[in-house]
Structures are given as C-alpha cells and as structure tokens.
C-alpha cells in the first residue's frame, strides 16, 4: 500500500486552505506490535534495595554500559548508584556523591543520622537533583544521562543531573561560513544551543517550550519564540503539529520538518535550517519560531518565504549598498541556475534567429562535429556535474582533489577535445553550477537544481514555448504554496508595499522600521519611534 499522507492539521485562521476532514487517522497512529512491554516500567519503586537492583538488572538487561555502584549511606543503610558510563561526568559523582557519603560527612550530622530519610536535596552539593518513585521515570532519567541513587528502605530514587560525556564544543559553522558576523555555531547538545540563544536574546520574552518526541530515542525537542512578537495562534499550531508526531526516533531536524510541513509533495523547502545562533535570533525577532532537536546542530525555522531562501545573514551585517549589489547578483544567478541550460537548448534547437549572427556562427562552429543533439548534450553534462558535486561532498579531503582534477580535465577539456560535447555547453554548465552555489540556502539550491531538468526537457521539446509553460507551472505552484499558513511568495503575492524593503533590495536598517507583514498584522514595528542611526542632523557629514 502506498505511503499515507501526512495528517492535515487544523489551519491557522488566516490560512487559505480549508480545514481537512477530521475522520482521517494520522499516519503515526499505528502502535508497533510484538514488542513486549517490560512489566517493571509500570510499577513503582520497591522499598528493598535488592528488589530495586533486580528491577534495574531486568530493565537494563544486556546493556553492558550501565554501571551499578554500591555504597554505604550510613552504617545501617546501603545505597546503589546507577548510571550509564560515558553519559555522566564521573568527577561530579565522585566529588559530590561518593566521597561525601563514603567519608561519612553526612553521618556526623546528628539530625540526619539514623532517620529514615537520610537524604535531603538541600544536603547534596549538586546543582540539579530530583526524587522519583516510578520505574518509568527513573529509567528515562538514567537513559537521559543522569545518575540515580537508590537507598535501602526507601521506595524512591534520587536523580542527580551529572550530564557529561564527550560532546563537540562550539565551533564555527561548516555550512554557513561568513566573512563578517559571529563565528559560533550550534552543537549537538540541546542545552548548549539554547544557551547560545539566551546569550543573544536576554529577555524573559524568549520562551522555550520543551517536549519529547520519539518512542525509542526520547529526543528532547525545544520550540522557541519571542512572546509578543510571534502570533500566539502560530505557536499553538506548531505545538499541535509537534505533539501529533508519532515516530520511533528523531535523529535530525529533517524528520520533524517532513512531518510538520504544509505541502509534503512540493519540491520547495517550507522550513529553513541553520547552524547559526544569530540567524535564529534574527528570525525570532521577525516573529518566526525555531525548533531545536537534541543531537543535531541544526535549528529549524518557520514559517518561511521564498525571499528568505535568497537571503544570507551577511546581507544584514554589511552596509546596504554592498548587500544590495550582492542580492542583485544572487537573483540574477538564480534565474541563470534555473534557465540557462534550457535557454541554450531552446536556442540551438529551435530559435537560431534569436542570437546575434556572430554568436550563432560561433556556436554552430563549435557544434559542427558534435554527435549528440543539444538536449542530450546538455542533459549529459548537467547530470555529470550533479554526480561530480555529489561525489565531492562525501569524499575525504585528500581524495576530493583527485575528483576535481578528474572532473575538470575529463569532463571539461577532454570531452570537448574529443568532440563529444561542445565548448559552449561546458561554459553553460559551469555557469549554472556556479549560479546554483550562489543561492545561500542549500535546500533551496537543490530544488532549483532539480527543477532545471524538467525545464530543460520542456525546452528540448517545445523550445521557448516549453520554457514559458514550465515557468508558468512553477510560478503557479509557488503562489499556491504556504509555509505554516503563510504564503510562500508573501510580499509579492499577496503584495505589500512596505515588505519590498527586504525582498529584492535590502533597505538600510534605519528605513526598515516594520517587521515583515506576513508574520503578524498588528504589533509589527521594530521600534516605536525612528530607529537609531537615522540621519537627522543637517550637517550629517
């Protein structure tokens, strides 16, 4: 049976799509059968330490990385510390749990000594402690990288947050390098990422709502937004979509993106991902939300528009003259990335009269002995280029050079010299390749690269007419597309005059007083009064 569609969720009120019929069962409603539920997990903790140990051994059967450390809490009372090796900071456990108990620091206190409750959170020198009495919670806490202390005669476990283990530190983002701008990037640790965001947005309005997704992975997911800027209905909608997810594991934001987007069958990305805390901050300030997933350095941002896909963080860090020029080039090359091979095919197979005489003669001279039609030639070269790019990504750096030499020499030069492909198509393919790399968002660039092929086929079949048909189809789709109810082409369709300041051009900061209108109609001023830096004095220079 075909894969079902993603459950359609109730739409935001301004969305143009109708609310779907509620009788559909969501895709993830299936409960996996055949997995025996461990009975211990349904039960509370026992008073006897031995029973608890048995329970632990049962729950974590065949888990060689679990550690059970027995210790004496008081002369009469035994304790048991359980944790996963590597996920906890063993120094913390030694300093704050093992040493104080074993050296008997606690025993000297007459008030504590001999009581049933020898442990009190106030007396443990660790920053985060919790008490739990259900096996389900306890095992989840241990799995999450905490240490649990069981005490003889107490039906409770004391959970110490000694999360540690080897994790990557904050480094410069690999995929979004900038010349000017912050160089820190997110890491795989969720709390590091949220902290990086906190450093930037020092306001209590920055909210971070946590939830757990993934039946087996139990991945922490945090949805973050700035209250007062974001539309509250949007937050509700996203939280509903997230809580509807039923999946065994979430390893990357991509899982979530695919499960909550509006149009699963559209080639266009409807969420943005980034490694940069500053990008997330900027988007939150424009009224968007971000989703962090533990274990990945990428944050998901939504809702997005097409223009956002063409913007880089540096657009806002450089002076606006430079940003505008760069943006102009980017849009020019976006058009080239989509249409250049198609135009070449159309012109050389149908519209010989559209080029200047000398140019068509040069092309004719180059194509004189080429055995393939222009369409086949273009497809061959484009596909080889895509393969080359794909090969280059995964290769170790040392082998990567070999690939580029092979690609440049074999595909570039030798193929032309052997008369298999013509020189103009090599130029066209290289230009298209460069053009697709100028698009700042990788997922959008891939979409553009993908769409190039159908447009090329249409050009090969119908010439310029085919290109126009294909363009019309893409444009129709784009105007219909939404991301969390926000039209993908917002700013142009529906048109808004003030939004033009940050679509194709980037107005100077002192002119961009309002936030994008598609996020929220009310409360969209960045500053109540004139922004700082507005040239006010007469003798401005």
């Amino acid at each position: 049976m075909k894969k079902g569609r993603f459950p359609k969720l109730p739409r935001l009120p301004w969305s143009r799509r109708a609310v779907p019929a509620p009788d559909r069962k969501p895709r993830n409603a299936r409960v996996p059968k055949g997995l025996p539920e461990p009975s211990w997990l349904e039960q509370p903790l026992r008073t006897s330490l031995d029973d608890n140990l048995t329970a632990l051994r049962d729950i974590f059967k065949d888990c060689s990385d679990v550690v059970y450390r027995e210790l004496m809490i008081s002369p009469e009372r035994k304790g048991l510390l359980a944790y996963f090796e590597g996920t906890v900071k063993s120094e913390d456990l030694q300093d704050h749990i093992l040493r104080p108990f074993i050296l008997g620091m606690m025993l000297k206190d007459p008030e504590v000594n001999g009581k049933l409750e020898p442990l009190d959170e106030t007396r443990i020198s660790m920053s985060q402690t919790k008490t739990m009495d259900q096996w389900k919670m306890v095992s989840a806490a241990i799995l999450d990288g905490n240490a649990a202390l069981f005490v003889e005669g107490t039906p409770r476990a004391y959970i110490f947050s000694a999360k540690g283990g080897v994790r990557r530190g904050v480094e410069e983002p690999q995929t979004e390098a900038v010349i000017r701008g912050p160089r820190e990037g997110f890491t795989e640790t969720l709390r590091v990422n949220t902290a990086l965001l906190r450093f930037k947005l020092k306001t209590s309005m920055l909210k971070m709502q946590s939830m757990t997704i993934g039946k087996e992975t139990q991945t922490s997911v945090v949805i973050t937004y700035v209250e007062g800027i974001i539309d509250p209905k949007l937050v509700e909608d996203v939280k509903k979509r997230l809580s509807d997810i039923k999946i065994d594991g979430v390893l990357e934001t991509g899982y979530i993106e695919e499960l909550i987007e509006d149009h699963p069958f559209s080639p266009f990305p409807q969420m943005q991902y980034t490694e940069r805390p500053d990008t997330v901050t900027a988007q939150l300030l424009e009224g968007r939300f971000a989703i962090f997933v533990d274990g990945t350095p990428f944050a998901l941002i939504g809702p997005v528009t097409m223009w956002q896909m063409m913007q880089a963080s540096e657009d806002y860090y450089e002076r606006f003259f430079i940003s505008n020029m760069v943006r102009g080039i980017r849009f020019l090359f976006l058009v080239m990335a989509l249409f250049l091979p198609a135009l070449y095919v159309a012109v050389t197979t149908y519209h010989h009269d559209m080029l200047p005489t000398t140019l068509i003669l040069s092309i004719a001279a180059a194509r004189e002995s080429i055995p393939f039609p222009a369409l086949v030639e273009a497809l061959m070269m484009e596909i080889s280029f895509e393969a080359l790019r794909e090969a280059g990504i995964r290769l170790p750096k040392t082998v990567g050079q070999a690939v580029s030499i092979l690609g440049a020499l074999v595909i570039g030069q030798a193929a032309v010299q052997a008369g298999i492909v013509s020189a103009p198509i090599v130029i066209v393919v290289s230009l298209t390749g460069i053009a697709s790399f100028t698009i700042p968002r990788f997922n959008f660039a891939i979409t553009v690269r993908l769409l190039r092929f159908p447009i090329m086929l249409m050009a090969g079949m119908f010439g310029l007419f085919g290109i126009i048909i294909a363009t019309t189809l893409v444009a129709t789709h784009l105007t219909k597309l939404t991301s969390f109810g926000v039209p993908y082409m917002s700013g142009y369709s529906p048109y808004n005059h003030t939004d033009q300041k940050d679509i194709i051009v980037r107005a100077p900061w002192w002119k961009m007083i309002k936030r994008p209108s598609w996020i929220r109609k009310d409360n969209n001023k960045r500053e109540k009064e004139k922004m700082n830096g507005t040239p006010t004095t007469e003798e401005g220079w």
Partner: protein
Amino acid sequence: MKPQGSDTGKIRKTAVLSCLLLCSVLLGGCWDRREVNDVAFVMGTGMDKEGDQYRVTMQIALPGQLGASGNTGGGGGTSGTKSYYLESKTGPSFRGASAEEQRGVSRTLNFSHRRVLLFGEALAREGIGNMMDVLARVPQNRLSSLVVITKGSALEVLQADAPIEQYPAEMVRELNYSYMENPRSIKLLLNTILLDGIDPAVPVMSLVKNGPASLKDKKTNIKVDGLAVFRKDRVTGIIDNHLSRFLLLGMNQAKNTEIFVLPPKGKGYISVDLIENKVNIEPNIRGDEIRMTIHINCNGNAKENETTFDISKEANLKWLEQQVAEQIKKELGEAVRVIQQKYHSDVLGLGRVIITSRPDEWKRIKPQWDHLYPKAEVTIDPVVHIENIGAITKPFGVKKENIQNE
C-alpha cells in the same frame, strides 16, 4: 488500517490520468527540432537576371571552417579554406530559385541571419518592387537586411576574396555602415519606394583588385562605387563616386565627406573633413514655378595641409570655409542637375518637402509633378564651419619664412 475510501482511488485515478497526459506530450515533442548543425546559414544573397530567369546566388556560411578553438574533431565534411561557399541556381522567380537551391543543399537553408541583398545592375534597372514580396511575407527574411546594387552581376561581387572579413557579405554590410548614416535596409527602401515625392538611392558596390597588377598578394575586394538612384522601383542611373559624396551630403546621409581645396597661391591641397551636417530644404512655390533652397550646415575639421597656407589665421580660415562652401555649392549643384534632368530621380525628396510643408500646393502640383520636377530651380546654400584645425597650426614641413600669411 489505512482509510481506503473513494478518496484514495480518486487520487490514484488522477495520477494515472496525468501520467498518460504527460506521455502524450512526449509524442508531439520535437517535431520541428532543428539542430544548429542541420542548418545552413545564408549570409548574403545576390540576384541577377538571366533572360527571363532569375539567378539567385547564396553565400552559405561553413562554420566548420571557422576553426572553433579546441575543436579538433574535424570540419564536418567541408573542404577548402574559405569559410563560405556559393550556391547559384536559376529559377522562374526569386523564391523559385531559392527552392531550387534547397534541392542542392543537404541542410535547411536559414535566412534569418542574411544581412545583405545584392541586386545586379541589369536586374535593378528592370525594377525590384515585385520581388520584394517574399522578403516581407516570410518571417525568416529580415526586413533589416541591407540592399545594395552591384555593378555587373551580383554573383561576381559575392565571389570576392574580401580577406578582411569572414564573409564578403559581411564586408558589404560593414561598407554600407561606413558609407551612409542610415544604410538602406529593405524596410527603408520599400518605404521610400512607396512614398510620394521621394525616390530611393542605394549604394553601388563593385569588385576591385586590391592593388596594381604588380602587387604580389593578389586578392579581389569589394568597394563602394557610387550611388544608384531610383525612379520608383527601377534604377535609372548610377552617380559616380565623386558626385555621390556630395549627393549624400544633400540627402543628409553623408558620414565623412572629404573636400579638397586649392590654396590661393602655390601647389598642394588643403583637405577638410565634414563630420556633422544638417540639411534643411525650403520650398518656394509660385504657380508652376518651383524654387528649392537647400540649406546645409556643415561642421568640419581640417585634416591635411600640403600647402604653405597658414590656416591658423582667422581670416585665412574664413577664406577656407568659404572655399569649401563654394565647392559644395558647385558639386552638389551638378549632382542635383544630373538626377533632375538625366535620371528623373528625386532622391533628395523635394516632393516630400512640399508634401510636409505645403500640403495644399502638393494636391495641385501632384498630377504634373513628374513634369515639374526636372524644371524645379534648386539653390544650394551651404554654411561651413571648421571647428578643429588639428594638433599643429602651421604647415608642418615648411620653413617659417615661406608660410603665406595674407
């Protein structure tokens, strides 16, 4: 487990249907696909009359001979060193001859890059209006192609070596641009033919050698050789190179007109290059007596002074300007007389002037215009201004004492 309602079936049906529709798109695709290497680009066409048949000569580009860089794959079966070849056939009509040519060329002839049309003198004297039809009817034929009359047959001129350009046709085109302000394209030519009160004039090209017989590297070349003047759509005469320069001045089409003036004393010439001209024709009609005054305002530069005459003096310069004006008056007067009386061709558009400035008079004159035109009295009133006398003021190779100062 999954909802299996009619909804899924409908989606599946739509998907299958759209797949079928997409397949039908493939069936119709590429029906008029024509690769660049299936096309023969015609660069120029020459037309001659042979008895009652038309001879059409086409200059077809051989891109294989252009020597694309890195293209060692071979020249696609073409041979020789020239980057073009000529294909000449006869037929009952222009199109008929073209169709005949297509039978002898394995690639589809493409006329969209044809830039020049050459008409043999003999054909042009019989009239070219009728055969222009195909040029406007078929979109591939560009109305911006330039029209040229050749001395002798067009075939001859297209055969030139013209080594300076890739194709002789290209050379004809470039010569056209350097000869006139607005080269006569098909559109312009037909406009002029169809308009009342003006006749077309088209450059004449002929085949020449690149030097005297003693020159070792012998090549044939193309040269502008005067101006063919029309009466309606027939060529009635050819103005020679010398007079045509002044005629172009009167038509406000001159690009660079060099005028040579003798000094008051001594030998040698002073050469003045007129670079900017403004022509204004003023009609004066009294009954059947038509007087026309051609006001010409010229700006020029002194280009050469082989004499001992000092043109840096204000008075001398004034004298020189006057001499140039005199010469324009004399030579243009001669040219106007020739076209008025010998060729009955109104290339200056004197009739047009009356139409635009005195439409009421034109209504009266129109029936007898053919009769009145040769009798119209044309006065030429040139004003010459020399703007620039060059980097040096006095004759370069003459001793100071020998310079005339009058």
